[in-house]
């Protein structure tokens, strides 16, 4: 009996393989720690399934080419692209697709040189450092600057493409950036688009999701909202989301940092009073309502 035939005869326990790989834990963690992002999570599950089945097939002697796993994450600021990339390295490592669980995060400055002949060694250095793991290029479109025809970014792109094509087993490249600019980048570099198998779009968060994120962030730092504080933050979010330069989870984090500051000031100013442990942890409505974001609409109304 040949090798594939014998494998046919025996049943394959995919469930056991799945448990043994430890990917389930990473996926569950992803579900727990990242609010929303349903399409992203679905896509990651798909990729995990593909890799798991591929691994099982390989072990049973069914030859197949290793899948191309270069990815592109597009989405507005603060939608969790970097966080997900970090998890991606974890998943790929557990499935044995990359050899070391590492994510080398770079931007244009790390790849592109200052003068002629500087770019190639610099890019190669970064690529070599990332080999065996994941290379995460944030705001990848800055690599390509059409307005300057002597820009060295093109050189970095060419080297990148070459390694992405020839050393697929050694390196997974994840490009990230804002959707519209990424689109323009790919239009100018069709070779790049065709070498990327997975285009994952990160949707904006809804108000409820942002509120859940805020609570998650606070609980990580041993804070919590009082019920009124929570309601006030919901109002804050509504107002903030309408303003320009809203950066999703990043804006939430900044708002919470400012709230913590006001919280500390409030406690400090009432220091004659005895404090309870609860006071130290609870962010009340005062902290949120003092925000400029909420004040402005009222001023406008008054005017």
């Amino acid at each position, binding site marked *: 009996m040949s090798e594939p035939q014998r494998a046919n005869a025996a049943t394959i326990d995919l469930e056991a393989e799945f448990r043994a790989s430890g990917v389930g834990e990473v996926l569950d963690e992803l579900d727990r720690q990242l609010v929303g992002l349903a399409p992203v999570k679905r896509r990651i599950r798909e990729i995990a399934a593909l890799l798991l089945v591929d691994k099982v097939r390989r072990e049973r002697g069914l030859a197949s080419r290793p899948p191309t796993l270069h990815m592109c994450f597009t989405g507005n600021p603060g939608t969790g692209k970097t966080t997900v990339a970090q998890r991606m390295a974890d998943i790929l490592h557990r499935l044995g697709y990359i050899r070391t669980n*590492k994510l080398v995060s770079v931007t244009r400055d790390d790849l592109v040189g200052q003068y002629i002949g500087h770019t190639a060694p610099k890019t*190669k250095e970064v690529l*070599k*450092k990332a*080999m*065996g*793991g994941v290379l995460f290029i944030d705001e990848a479109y800055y690599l390509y600057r059409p307005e300057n025809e002597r820009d060295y970014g093109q050189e970095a792109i060419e080297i990148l493409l070459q390694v992405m094509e020839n*050393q697929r087993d*050694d390196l997974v490249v994840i490009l990230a950036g804002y959707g519209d600019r990424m689109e323009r980048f790919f239009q100018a570099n069709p070779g790049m688009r065709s070498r990327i198998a997975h285009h994952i779009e990160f949707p904006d968060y809804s108000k409820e999701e942002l509120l859940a994120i805020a609570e998650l962030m606070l609980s990580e730092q041993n804070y919590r909202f009082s019920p009124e504080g929570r309601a006030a933050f919901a109002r804050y979010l509504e107002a903030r989301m309408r303003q320009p330069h809203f950066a999703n989870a990043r804006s939430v984090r900044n708002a919470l940092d400012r709230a913590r500051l006001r919280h500390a000031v409030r406690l400090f100013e009432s220091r004659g009073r005895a404090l309870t442990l609860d006071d130290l942890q609870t962010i009340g409505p005062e902290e949120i309502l003092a925000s400029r974001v909420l004040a402005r609409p009222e001023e406008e109304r008054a005017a």
Partner: protein
Amino acid sequence: MHITQGTFSFLPPLTDEQIKKQIEYCIAKGWAVNIEFTDDPHPRNTYWEMWGLPMFDLTDAAAVMYELNECRKVYKGRAYIRISAFDSSPGWESLRLSFITDRPDDEPGFDLRREESRGRMQRYSIRAYATERPMGARYGR
């Protein structure tokens, strides 16, 4: 004449897979891997030309293989290429492992020179036939 030097000199030439395994071993030990080449095969020629800097902060052998292949693109068939690994744990870089990965296609070998000296003393020296030509024009092409 098949010239051997360094670790594994008693073995047939290593395959790429074997080279990669050795590099993995070096990296796991925390050694910096370096690629060198020369077209002077004399055993006393210890200072070979360096292909770039030693690779200090790598975690994966694929990167060294990438550089080795880059070096081969330029020097394969025209020079000897070797891989050395340096250990810095004593406080200075010391050579731990060194082996030849590539040789010129045609190795003419050495000329043994005998020199009459005082009395009936005989002095010997060896000289590679290849070094009769200037550097860069010694092998192939």
